[in-house]
């Protein structure tokens, strides 16, 4: 029963991801939040695998679960004062928290309703072949300008980050 297995895989991956994401925003300890974030990223990577986007899943694990998480943890270490416990408090007032919950729930419900009641026209089955090759072709073909711009953006971000983080040293 491949169907059932697939359902199971999806349910478990989705469950892990959502629970981990909840952990990110609900945890009172900043370090826990960061670790939950890594778990979320891994879960999302698993979903990519499940969707047949293996390359993206690897990129996700490398960039998010690897590099970005490490950056986050470094930043947490640099800015944390005192104990780690209670370093990630929720909003200052109940009002703002309630507003956040209200809007988030409303948005999720709205999106969910619109998704659930939509009709989708499924496409043809994927032709067998190397997806990465197709990606590479697009990147260096139709989207080469965007690709180059992304490269420049990364360079600028690195330079900007260095300048900002270095600060005034006069």
């Amino acid at each position, binding site marked *: 029963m491949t169907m059932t297995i697939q359902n199971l895989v999806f349910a478990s991956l989705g469950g892990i991801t959502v629970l981990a994401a909840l952990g990110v*925003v609900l945890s009172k300890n900043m370090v826990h939040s960061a670790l939950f974030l890594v778990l979320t*990223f891994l879960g999302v990577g698993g979903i990519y695998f499940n969707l047949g986007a293996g390359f*993206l899943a690897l990129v996700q694990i490398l*960039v998010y679960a690897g590099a970005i998480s490490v950056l986050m943890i470094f930043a947490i270490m640099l800015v944390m004062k005192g104990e780690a416990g209670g370093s990630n408090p929720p909003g200052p007032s109940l009002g703002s928290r309630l507003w*956040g919950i209200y809007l988030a729930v409303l*948005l999720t419900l709205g999106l969910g309703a619109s*998704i659930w009641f939509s009709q989708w026209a499924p496409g*043809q089955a994927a032709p067998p072949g190397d997806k990465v090759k197709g990606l590479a072709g697009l990147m260096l073909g139709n989207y080469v300008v965007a690709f180059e711009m992304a490269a420049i953006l*990364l360079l600028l971000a690195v330079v900007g980050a260095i300048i900002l*983080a270095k600060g005034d040293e006069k």
Partner: protein
Amino acid sequence: MVGLSHYLILASLLFGIGLYGVLSKRSAVAVLMSIELMLNAVNINFIAINRFLQPAQTTGQLFAIFVIVVAAAEVAVGLALILSIYRLRKSVDLNDFNLMKW
């Protein structure tokens, strides 16, 4: 059977959680993390729609890669900004940053 709708609803859940984090967390770093959650939700959408509606092409994956690139740049700059403002005000609590108040 798991279909496109399931993936999209999963993405909406993730996005909603991220939105809650953005709106109600105090620490700037936590807000940044929540933004990452929202970006991941968007990426799931891209790939799922690509997978189910246009399986013959990989454009959706390509856009997901671009989102990852931009997210990486955003995290780098965002964290640098947080460090910078932390040096200045010895705080990452967003409630302390109200210089632009009326």
